[in-house]
């Protein structure tokens, strides 16, 4: 990548694989379980977190020399809260149905561990540009898992992808349904999201043995 130095590009690429916020650091699990029943919701959630995390990281990084150490958590919370409210309002204005579907979970981005984690661990000690890249990278790593989980849950649970009936019509019995196939209701329940994430963790660690934790 000519655009980014090698060090900078690692900021984006690391969280996608070997330092993934969900599968390696095991942060942000709650929302990954709650809203991944539909691929569309996963994508919107991933984008929302990306906006909040990237902008928040830049803001925190700019203010890093101004914020007194003792009250930094409160300062961080205010910044996240402001950003989340903006995202929430934008969704309500332009994608009302979707925002109803995501309901409280957009608001709960505030409590997403990944965001506070990146503020604390990275933005407070790095310059804005690097913080921005770190935000994008971590949100992308988070979003990638969300989209993978959402893909499988929607495909196997509802037989659709982004609302399109890719496997045929379950009521008119076309496509796969004509052969007796049925949607897997378990996929729509949150426990299955946990199992899917577990399988991703399993596959990832068996491909890269260095990631396996010592007991």
């Amino acid at each position, binding site marked *: 990548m000519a655009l980014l130095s090698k060090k900078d590009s690692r900021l984006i690429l690391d969280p996608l694989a070997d330092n993934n916020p969900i599968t390696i650091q095991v942060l942000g699990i709650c929302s990954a379980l709650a809203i991944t029943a539909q691929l569309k919701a996963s994508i919107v959630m991933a984008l929302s977190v990306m906006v909040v995390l990237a902008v928040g990281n830049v803001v925190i990084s700019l203010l890093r020399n101004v914020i007194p150490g003792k009250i930094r958590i409160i300062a961080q919370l205010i910044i996240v809260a402001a950003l989340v409210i903006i995202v929430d309002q934008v969704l309500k204005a332009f994608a009302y149905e979707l925002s109803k579907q995501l309901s409280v979970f957009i608001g709960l981005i505030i409590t997403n561990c990944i965001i506070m984690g990146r503020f604390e661990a990275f933005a407070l000690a790095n310059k804005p540009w690097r913080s921005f890249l770190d935000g994008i990278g971590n949100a992308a790593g988070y979003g990638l898992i969300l989209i993978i989980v959402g893909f499988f849950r929607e495909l196997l649970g509802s037989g659709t992808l982004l609302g399109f009936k890719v496997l045929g019509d379950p009521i008119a019995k076309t496509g796969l349904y004509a052969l*007796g196939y*049925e949607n897997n*209701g*378990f*996929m729509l*329940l949150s426990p299955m999201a946990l199992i899917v994430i*577990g399988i991703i963790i399993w596959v990832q660690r068996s491909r890269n043995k260095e990631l396996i934790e010592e007991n």
Partner: protein
Amino acid sequence: MGLKQNLHKLKEKYKGTKMAPAFNALHTFLYTPNETTHSGSHVRSADDLKRTMNTVIMALIPCLIFGIFNAGYQHYAAIDNTLRLDPLGNFFTWDNFILGAWTVLPLVIVSYGVGLGVEFIFAIIKKHEVEEGYLVTGMLVPLIVPIDIPLWMLAVAVIFGVIIGKEVFGGTGMNILNPALTIRAFLFFAYPTWMSGDKVWVHGAQAMAGQPDAISGETILGTLAANTHPAYSLWDMFWGFIPGSVGETSTFLIIIGGLFLIFTKIGSWRIMLSAVVGALVMGLIFNGVVDQGWIEDGSKFYGLMSEPFWHHLIIGSAAFAIVYMATDPVTASQTNKGKWIYGFLIGFMGIMIRVFNPAYPEGFMLSILLLNVFAPTIDHYVIQGNIKKRMKRIKVKTA
């Protein structure tokens, strides 16, 4: 040259290759291996894992045979109600057997074929020996599913159950949850329309739904949950001439199997006994609530709560679950005191879930899975308690 020699030759030929575990398993499954351990001291006992598993399977065979006849009987009796007047006379007939075998045996074959397939693949990938763990699970699974479950669903569930329920934890002996119940729970949550309701328990009911000669095959629990009285006599329920999952209807044969397991010391009598007591206690509590008039007969819980407490043991899967599922030595508590607690809670919560969840009156699957998760915790506290007691004894002596 006998089969044994041939198998041995094959095993030697593939030794060290990828396929070695597969041939090794085939060889040891059919014959006693001719190698012995070379070092260390060993207890010589015929009671290995394979024999344990085979004993359980032997205890299950009567249930399977009964299930085969019952599948046919329920189908014909649903079409011609007069058959029910003389259940015993109309039960052991060739018609029943042929239809039953035609519907039940595919379940057995799919269960074993898919499950052992997954085990073999895992053994080859992970380069360990094929484990015997699936032998019992493979027999339990067909006995606890509705007769008309589509075979591909069963296959999907078996793959899920073996991989997520067992292999991810490290294979046989390491699993936390009972694999057979994991498979059933997966089926129940994934395909609820095939696992509950009044159309799945009798062969052909689903296909004939909506037609003038539609079959209704409500289970006893379903009927009671709907606050109506079941059409079957208590003796029918005890002998098992009722609709239900394939192999779990006959309380009589399950008791025989249970006694066999206790006699051979394969199944834990502590768990069975305490589970029965737990179920009876919960049933008595519910009966008491009804007697006190704390619940009105219009309530949706009334039907199940007012059922005499000991009936709960002969309806639904209670007996089957207590005898064959709760006693799984891997997932149950290991300590004797722990077994009492574990069994009691299974019975207690099984009846509680059965009564309070009208959408799904069969609670034993869930209560056993729940207690499977808690079994190590129970053991931990039992052991800690024991250590504390002994420490106290030491202190008293030294003081």
